[in-house]
């Protein structure tokens, strides 16, 4: 009896919150199924369409090239995210585990990278990219994304590495473990929940990045997905049905990554530490 009550209360709170959370999203879901005539007919944004207009989705994918843009973004994200996390993990490992000088200074140096307003970097970056023929190059933009992603990744990983008990290191060293092995076989596996959550957030940030993509990628066939979605917004009027359909399709890969990785939050380190 005592156990059931909290469960019921939890569901009650969660369902209430879900309703609040779902309502705003409904407008884009419904809009994505409306033809232009429906959308502009004066019916409410929360009214059902007279007929589901699937063409919005196919038009977005093929005529408006969303599929191509998504492919481009995927090509960048699959490199950027793992490499960025790996490099950040090395840095975080050094800051937290190796006796480097001024670990806090190094950490704050990286953190300042997060504070510099993005727009400040646009002019010099554009000049550098143009000089070196890197405009439109996926490798070029991947490199910049990794650089811009490092501060956040280091911030996250440093925190989680810190919460792994130091005694583990000593035990590992006594067992004859090298630093490299400590990193790969002790710290990284223990930080799995952190890496999973970082992967989710980093993938999302890369996927949704817009400003750099709109400056450094110009070739229309190489555009990244968020910049591509902005093409749906016209100077004189926007096809909101197409835009909403595009947004929903755009979300699929991110949600997929999320659903696949979120289960790692449950496999906490508690068991591992004991074992």
């Amino acid at each position, binding site marked *: 009896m005592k156990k059931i009550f909290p469960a019921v209360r939890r569901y009650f709170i969660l369902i209430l919150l879900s309703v609040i959370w779902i*309502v705003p999203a409904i407008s884009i879901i419904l809009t994505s199924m409306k033809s232009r005539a429906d959308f502009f007919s004066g019916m409410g944004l929360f009214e059902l369409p007279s007929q589901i207009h699937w063409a919005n989705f196919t038009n977005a994918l093929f005529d408006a090239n969303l599929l191509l843009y998504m492919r481009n973004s995927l090509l960048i994200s699959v490199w950027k995210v793992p490499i960025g996390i790996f490099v950040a993990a090395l840095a975080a490992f050094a800051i937290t585990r190796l006796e480097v000088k001024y670990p806090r200074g190094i*950490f704050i140096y990286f953190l300042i990278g997060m504070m510099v*307003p993005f727009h*400040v970097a646009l002019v010099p970056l554009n000049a550098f990219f143009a000089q070196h023929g890197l405009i439109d190059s996926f490798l070029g933009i991947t490199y910049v994304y990794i650089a811009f992603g490092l501060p956040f990744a280091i911030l996250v990983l440093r925190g*989680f590495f810190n919460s792994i008990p130091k005694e583990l290191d000593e035990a590992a060293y006594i067992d004859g473990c090298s630093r490299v092995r400590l990193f790969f076989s002790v710290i990284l596996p223990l930080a799995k929940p952190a890496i999973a959550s970082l992967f989710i957030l980093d993938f999302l940030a890369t996927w949704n990045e817009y400003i750099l993509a709109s400056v450094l990628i110009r070739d229309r066939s190489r555009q990244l997905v968020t910049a591509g979605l*902005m093409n749906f917004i016209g100077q004189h009027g926007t096809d909101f049905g197409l835009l909403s359909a595009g947004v929903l399709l755009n979300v699929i890969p991110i949600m997929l990554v999320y659903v696949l990785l979120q289960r790692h939050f449950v496999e906490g*380190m508690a068991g591992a530490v*004991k074992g």
Partner: protein
Amino acid sequence: MDDMEFVGLGNFSHLFFEDLVFWGALRNNLVWMILTLVFMISVSLGLAMLLNAKFKGRTFFRGLFYFPFVLSGILVGIIWRWMYNVNFGFLNEFLSLIGLDQLRQTWLGDPNMALFYVFIAALWRGVGAPMILFLAGLQTIPEDVLEAADIDGASRFKKFFSIKLPMLKETFVIVLATQIIGSMGVFDIIVATTGGGPGNSTQVLASYMVQQTFSFANMGMGAALSTIMLVIMMIVVIPYVLFTTKER
């Protein structure tokens, strides 16, 4: 562009002493930061606690609260400006539907309240990110510590305040640092909902900076604003980080 002229601190003195928008934008940033620290943190931490236990449908709920965060800020702006629209928006329609016509608002059109309404949109969108970090952080609390507390008969409050919160210290550093930096740089959701209006009442430093730099070709002012933003962030974040990382 060789006719760039060195104007010394002219851009700063204009911002500080003559500009009508600057101080309001700075105030808005600070208000935004406080709102973020209070509401974003408490809601996301609460959600993470609720969603940490094992129960049916957990994956669904976790996905649901994360979902708005994956939408780009500009799209969230469009959704919410429709929600708030006086004529066809959900909120006013809903109020009429349940017979509360007298509560209909101009929402974003009210210069005194617009910033708060935009913040609600940002809250709706943003809780997913700190929620994920808190969820990951909660995993680092060893189960035996909590079991021991249970055996000692510790109350839920006690468990929360004296065990879970202290053990989430590192997560808090991450979340607070990103949220503070994020609230100084908040930009796209404001541009997409109100464009900084009405009457600059929702203008923040970043939106003002971008407007000055690109819409009005005022590069000097834009650079001055960027510098001010950077300095404020450093003043707030660095001491905090130094303080929390001290005792090691």
